[in-house]
């Protein structure tokens, strides 16, 4: 890409995961334009033990981010579940009173509450809302004055570009990290097996239901609940048993295969200029459950890549491959419809 082309692009916002206060500081220091985080309860879609923020922690983190010029986005993006939907409303109130830059919501009731109670609070539509068509996105903009949509990881760049021309809000797109196969906000697979719900509890493949069993031949079986999600030969790297990343049998197959998706990570670094040209104004890195060193490495690499591209330089992206799941990466749906 030439310098002239780079000059035409608006500088995208780099949106980074902050699973803990320490990860937030790390992301800020590494050059994040924005961080997203959640409260330590069922109100966000990464409700894992040891993750997320208490209210005092969030209160303390915001000035740190501000000093680094970084925005703070609060994810309240699971589905408020009756009885007890108050918990989600209180999370919205917390975000408003602490002055976060936006809250990320998925649930109609939560969005309606936020728009009604805190009309000045900026709303982003979470990927959990699963708004994948221009009409769906326009609905949320019209009803709740949503300012930005986080697009599902299922669209090609050409489709993103077409959507951009039809909607009145900004687009945020995932560029790196775990690639969820199922439409977000509409997956009950974990609940079917474990009794804990992704939509209601913010939980996917909870560690409490995971078991690894060594077989006599040295193979390792990975289970979720009673079900064998995968089995790894001796010497093979055992993965975490997520239902949509397991190997199974179907009638047409004579060997176990990844029926949904291989355990790979999304890495769109080489498509960044195309994404920005398609109208994506924020680039999101997945991984609130990841370590500080991971966050530091990915944010640093993406910070440099975006700056290089904006300066008209070819970005160096080699460091990112080592950080992808098992060293395997994919461009997922973004590059081509063949992925589907």
């Amino acid at each position, binding site marked *: 890409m030439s310098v002239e082309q780079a000059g035409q692009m608006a500088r995208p916002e780099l949106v980074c995961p902050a699973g803990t206060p320490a990860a937030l500081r790390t992301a800020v220091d590494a050059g994040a334009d924005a961080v997203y985080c959640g409260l330590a309860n069922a109100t966000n879609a990464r409700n894992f033990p040891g993750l997320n923020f208490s209210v005092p922690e969030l209160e303390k983190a915001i000035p740190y981010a501000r000093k680094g010029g970084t925005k703070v986005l609060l994810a309240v993006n699971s*589905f*408020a*579940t*009756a*009885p007890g*939907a108050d918990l989600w409303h209180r999370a919205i109130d917390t975000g408003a009173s602490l002055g976060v830059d936006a809250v990320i919501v*998925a*649930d*109609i*009731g*939560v969005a*309606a509450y936020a728009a009604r109670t805190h009309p000045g609070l900026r709303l982003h539509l979470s990927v959990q*809302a699963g*708004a*994948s*068509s*221009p*009409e*769906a996105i326009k*609905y*949320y903009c*019209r*009803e709740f004055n949503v300012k930005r949509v986080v697009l*599902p990881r*299922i*669209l090609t760049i050409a489709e993103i570009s*077409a959507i951009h021309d039809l909607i009145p809000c900004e687009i945020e797109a995932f560029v790196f990290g775990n690639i969820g*196969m*199922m*439409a977000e*906000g*509409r*997956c*009950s*697979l974990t609940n*079917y*097996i*474990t*009794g804990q719900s992704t*939509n*209601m509890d913010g939980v996917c493949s909870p560690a409490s239901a995971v078991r690894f069993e060594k077989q006599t031949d040295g193979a390792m079986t990975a289970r979720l*609940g009673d*079900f*064998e*999600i995968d*089995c790894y030969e001796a010497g093979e790297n055992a993965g975490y048993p997520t239902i949509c990343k397991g*190997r*199974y*049998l*179907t*009638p*047409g*197959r004579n060997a*176990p*295969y990844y*029926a*949904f998706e291989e355990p790979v990570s999304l890495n769109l670094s080489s498509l960044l200029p195309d994404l920005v040209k398609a109208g994506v104004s924020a680039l999101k890195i997945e991984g609130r459950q990841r370590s500080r060193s991971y966050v530091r490495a990915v944010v640093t690499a993406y910070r440099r890549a975006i700056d290089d591209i904006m300066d008209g330089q070819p970005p160096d992206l080699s460091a990112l491959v080592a950080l992808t799941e098992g060293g395997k990466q994919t461009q997922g749906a973004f590059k081509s*419809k063949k*992925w*589907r």
Partner: protein
Amino acid sequence: MTRLNLTMGPLIFHWPADKKRDFWFRIADEAPVDTACIGETICSKRTPYFDDRQYEEVAQRLERGGKKVVWSTLCEVMIKGDSKIVARTSRRPDAEIEVNDASALWHLSGRPHRIGPAFNVYNSETMQYLARKGARHFCLGAELPAPTIAALGKTAAELNVGLEVQIFGRMSLALSARCYHARAHDRTKDDCRFVCENDPDGMELTTRSNTPFLSINGIQTLSHRYLNLAHELRDLAEMGVATFRLSPHSCDMVAVAGTYRALLDGKIDATEADELLVEHGVPQPMANGFFHQRPGLERVAPGPD
């Protein structure tokens, strides 16, 4: 007490056109259901095989059979073709539309409509908001537990809107952009050659050690086990649920509907209904876990009456 109703949900599988037509004609003529939901809800690529005109014929037959007809929209709307179909269904004059995603709401908000099970309604505020914008009837998603259904039942009564839950058939657990049916056959969604037609109740997916696990219907992942809430019907009715949905399968759905109708009418008890479902060839064991806040695949034994 309000009359308790049965709905035949949309046919989610890709059956050959004549089989599909015969199925709906037989439901129209023989099944003791009050409402029938028609239309393709899973994959827009299937719609040319059973187009609007064929569904209109089905709708007329259902109405002649005394059934209320509801048109259900696509659950996942992603490509232009999907959007067009949703727009067309939403603009259908004088039709009752069941909304399964927000793009249908874009068209229907402000006009009377129904909310389908693929649209997340987990709390009273959501129900109130949608009702204010024209939603008159809600069919809840399969994963909601009893306390949530009870809370929504109260809200539905206050709003004077209908409340429905699925009580029979495989449960929808996930939707995806990718077609897993095509993938199983080393094809892509664009080049699927409609391989999903070969599996009238979904494609069995087992673990590596051959334990039945899930079932694949194109872009949709279903439970392996069929849902059966025969023993929960009375509790559901007390919570304010007055309509019960059967999701069609290749077993004798007229007999299945007859069984639940007899149960609702007090002619048989829930244990007898269970036995009749076995006789009708419904795969066993069946599941009711979600309602009891247990893993969805579990079968929780009925408590003492």
